């Protein structure tokens, strides 16, 4: 298994006739993602590669059984496109775009909740369940199927870390980019809940940064008696307070949002926090073997 995305997802691509949409279709199909439809208003009847184009999500769903959408339209059009996908009944909608007004994300999240859909993003690399399917532009060679669930606030950092995991022989069940914005389609808490319920996931690696409050969810989860092992890397110990480090949410606005405070909070909740990128793999391994010992103790 995996979370949100596996071989069963039937994917439609909004904005499929644009440059990113076209490139995605080629790259994702190569990876094995089941891309069944494109959507581009006014362009129905066209084709992108082998993928038929429809004028609306509803038409695409009816014709192809698509149940998952990835949105490649300009920031001003993202909300409209994603709401269309959610309300047409898609179970998963991936928004990679950054520069989305936070109010649009707020509206998106409210609609997703009301319709029982999952949204990944915005400002996210997407989601990949290695060996099954990917929805995003992550470099495929960095990933390998396995039992580590990865949650990341940052795209390239997740590529880097997953490559290290893969080189160390630790495959991933699903890697979800929750995105760098303050409001998230899927929060760390929600992703943790999904990984907790996924039998294939044995441990979770959380890749966080300074700013925001996402890390408190991770600590909260790790403190549960039934939690799976959690390791984390929090970047930005060299970031100054009060300055936005690229991501809208990566800004130390209060003491609790600093690197030191987050690491302390997470460690006291039982999260294995790496001191840097270089010991991230070992930290995860330590979390796993600690988890295994705990399980043996419990069994004994």
């Amino acid at each position: 298994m995996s979370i949100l995305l596996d071989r069963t997802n039937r994917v439609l691509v909004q904005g499929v006739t644009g440059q990113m949409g076209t490139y995605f279709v080629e790259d994702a199909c190569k990876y094995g993602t089941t891309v069944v439809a494109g959507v581009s208003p006014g362009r129905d009847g066209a084709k992108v590669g082998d993928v038929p184009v429809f004028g609306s999500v509803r038409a695409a769903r009816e014709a192809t059984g698509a149940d998952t959408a990835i949105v490649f339209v300009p920031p001003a059009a993202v909300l409209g496109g994603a709401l269309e996908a959610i309300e047409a009944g898609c179970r998963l909608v991936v928004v990679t775009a950054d520069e989305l007004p936070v109010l649009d994300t707020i509206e998106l999240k409210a609609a997703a909740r009301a319709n029982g859909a999952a949204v990944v993003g915005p400002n996210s690399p997407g989601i990949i369940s290695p060996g099954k399917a990917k929805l995003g532009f992550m470099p495929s060679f960095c990933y390998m199927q396995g039992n580590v669930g990865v949650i990341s606030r940052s795209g390239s950092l997740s590529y880097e870390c997953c490559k290290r995991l893969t080189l160390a022989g630790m495959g991933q069940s699903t890697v979800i980019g929750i995105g760098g914005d303050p409001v998230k389609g899927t929060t760390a808490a929600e992703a943790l809940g999904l990984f907790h319920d996924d039998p294939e996931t044995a441990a979770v690696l959380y890749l966080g940064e300074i700013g925001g409050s996402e890390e408190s969810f991770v600590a909260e989860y790790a403190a549960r008696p039934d939690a799976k092992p959690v390791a984390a890397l929090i970047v930005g110990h060299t970031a100054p307070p009060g300055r936005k480090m690229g991501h809208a949410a990566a800004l130390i606005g209060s003491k609790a949002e600093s690197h030191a405070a987050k690491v302390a909070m997470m460690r006291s909740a039982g999260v294995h926090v790496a001191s840097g990128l270089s010991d991230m793999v070992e930290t995860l391994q330590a979390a796993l073997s600690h988890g295994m010992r705990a399980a043996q103790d419990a069994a004994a």
Partner: protein
Amino acid sequence: MMLLEHEAKQLLDSVGIQVPRGLVIRPGDGTPDGIESYPVAVKAQVRSGGRGKQGGIVRAGDRPALAAAITRLFATAFGGERPEALLIEPWLAIERETYLSVAVDGRADGYVVMYSARGGVGIEEGAPPVRYPVGAPWNFRVHGLRKALESAEPDYQWREKVIALAQRLIRTAAMRDLTTIEINPLATLTDGALVAADARVVCDEWAHFRNKAIHAQREAEKRRAEPLLRDCLNMQHMYVRLDGDIALISGGAGMTMAAMDMIADCGGRPACFLDCSPGPTSTRGYRPAFAMLDADPRVKVILVSVFGGGTQMQRVANSMKEIMAERKSRKPVVFRLDGTNVDQVPGIFARFGAHNHARLEDAVAEAVRLAGGRA
């Protein structure tokens, strides 16, 4: 993007929230006429916090004191920032100071309202404010906030005023694309009036396409930047200057911070956060970054660190080849490219004699060595 205090107060005034009647002066305006009564507060208009503790608010009891305050404040930097304007307001006869804010908070999937019965300068030291999670702005409920405030604010008449004000603030935040409106102190004057004595407003820069005021703020921010930085901002690069000497040209906020941290962990000192991922991968994108860092005398080494997904590495490598060929500066550049199509990089790099490090650790160690650090 943060508004200056006087901009924030003008915005509050436009939605019917009472603010002190203020007068804004710019450098060179001299001492204004038409001040009806003294004392007045002279307030440095800067974006950095802690202005009050740094002497950025001066009480002037008469015209000579006002003139002196104006001269002094325009000549002072607060958190490295010289005031572009001063706000002159009547010195308020404050009876009570409270705290009220409305802000985007991920835990609420939208907005929260925060209130503290004790506001003012020491707000961060006191008990944490009461928190009412709103979420989407249309989910604000007067009775929800009332319930949240019952424990925090015993005076029911004041409570009702705060609730009405919070409702106005939520609506304002939603309609103006604001991520924070903080009123601290929210003051009762001795005559009973409720006044936003100080205000901090942050707007969502990504709403620029539908909000001309925000668009103008963005443009003004670029204009305030030095020309070389401005060229970078025009390429959508995100830049924060740090204290060190090892500059980064990087991709992705998380990876940029990871590299900064690794530099420090190796005994080096990062010179900046510079995320070039939103810009083009052509030379047009990277050229302004090199121009700025090459001209910066504090920068000794440049570390190019990009791990690309949608960003294709052969394109980045080709851009580097071109830029290295045309570049005048002799500052050493260390490369670490990885990600999509990285297998094409060594061939391209060989053509201009550059080396691409396979591991970030090696690239960082090299950069720290070149900067003369301990590693």
